[in-house]
């Protein structure tokens, strides 16, 4: 009877501790020892898991995980960075259920190891044309962003808390804005003037600003990029443009907190990974390097696999309009 009781206990134990015992073992007294051994083995893992958990909870994870996913999906051969690889591996393992995080010491039951549940990015869209506002709003919503659309630069500054009337140095925006996308040609305040005002404000200058224009004027593009615009999109705006913008937002959020990322992301600099959407265009580096060197977040935008499109796009559009 005692043995039967023992056996049943082991069976229960085996079912609970599937993470420790991954293969079937004959149920006899040796298993206690084996389990203790595996338990001590996993004690070391516990520390590593703890560190990993620490990373998971930090915003760093979001960026690294996205990077890991990008790297893994798009350029598997380059995925040799140990921490990226580790993260990719743990995410894959967690998804496939091999690793169960059920340990009594660490309460991880509520932890979602699936795709990162990041908050939706909030984009402020500025355009005087109602048609364009509707289109950009829909493009952004379909890309899982919260959108606020306003019809003028003045309204945009009001929303951001940079009113002319109340000179508040602390810019209050009720909802934090992750990206500002604005038309260039607007009555009253142009997109360029809005860009300047934003970059002059200490509270708001970190927010990436993207300029849209129906005119493909190189001087205009250069001027905006020099003023600190993140990118310049030639209208009409497409879904692929918005997808690229999403990269800015997640990357920006991560970069502010990790200098390590900056170094890593600068590595695959000028090599476009030939995504299918790019037309064979002139090398982007000649245009990109002079205007993009000042700010690190911009230079980092070279390196993620989808980023060469951001620099190629003014040129791609230029090429397309030249052949029209």
């Amino acid at each position, binding site marked *: 009877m005692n043995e039967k009781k023992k056996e049943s206990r082991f069976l229960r134990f085996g079912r609970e501790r599937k993470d420790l015992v991954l293969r079937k073992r004959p149920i006899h007294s040796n298993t206690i020892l084996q389990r203790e051994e595996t338990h001590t083995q996993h004690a070391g893992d516990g520390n590593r898991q703890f560190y990993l958990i620490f990373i998971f909870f930090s915003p760093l994870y979001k960026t690294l995980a996205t990077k890991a996913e990008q790297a893994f999906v798009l350029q598997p051969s380059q995925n040799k960075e140990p921490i990226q690889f580790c993260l990719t591996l743990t995410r894959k393992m967690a998804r496939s259920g091999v690793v169960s995080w059920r340990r009594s010491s660490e309460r991880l039951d509520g932890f979602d190891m699936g795709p990162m549940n990041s908050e939706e990015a909030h984009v402020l869209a500025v355009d*005087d*044309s*109602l*048609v*364009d506002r*509707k*289109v950009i709003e*829909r*493009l952004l919503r*379909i890309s899982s962003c919260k959108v606020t659309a306003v019809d003028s630069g003045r309204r945009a500054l009001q929303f951001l808390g940079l009113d002319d009337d109340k000179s508040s140095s602390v810019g209050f925006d009720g909802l934090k804005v992750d990206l500002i996308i604005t038309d260039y*040609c607007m*009555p009253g305040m142009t997109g360029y003037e809005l860009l300047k005002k934003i970059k002059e404000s200490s509270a708001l200058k970190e927010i990436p600003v993207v300029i849209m224009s*129906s005119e493909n004027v190189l001087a205009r593009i250069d001027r905006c990029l020099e003023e600190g615009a993140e990118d310049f999109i030639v*209208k*009409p*705006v*497409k*879904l692929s443009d918005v997808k690229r913008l999403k990269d800015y937002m997640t990357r920006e959020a991560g970069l502010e907190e990790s200098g390590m990322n900056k170094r890593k992301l600068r590595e695959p600099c000028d090599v476009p990974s030939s995504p299918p959407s790019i037309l064979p265009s002139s090398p982007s580096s000649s245009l990109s390097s002079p205007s993009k060197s000042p700010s690190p977040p911009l230079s980092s935008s070279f390196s993620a696999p989808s980023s060469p499109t951001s620099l190629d796009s003014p040129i791609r559009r230029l090429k397309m309009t030249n052949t029209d």
Partner: protein
Amino acid sequence: MLGLGADRLRADMNRLLAMLFHQGVLDEQFLQLQQLQDESSPNFVSEVVNIYFHESEKLLRNLRELLMDREFSDYKKMGTHLNQFMGSSSSIGAKRIRNVCVAFRAASEHNNRAGCLRALEVLEHEYCYLKNKLHELFQIEQQRVLAAGVRYPMQNN
């Protein structure tokens, strides 16, 4: 029979769209708009196009008033209207209209009033054509949706 009707209507729609593309009236941006339409926003294209029509009619009226004025000289204001029209047309995918606007703008930059008047007439003509065709397209779409939604008792099993 109506089940077949839905397919026929879809074929009609595709034929009309293909013709408009072939003529250069519409371009790929219109397709992009259609891609943005889904269950959560089932009338997106028609909503945007109707806003476009509304705005365009205002702009065309303004342009005509400006040019009809005998003492007209404010080419700059005309240029502003034109830019707006051009921008919204390209956002819709109205390629031919946009191209006419480009020619119109060139005439206005040269202060060529006669050229502007001619361009305005072409613009109005193109706009009417586009409006009729798109209305037709939306009508077929509506009918198709209705036809596809009808079920016969036997089909429910």
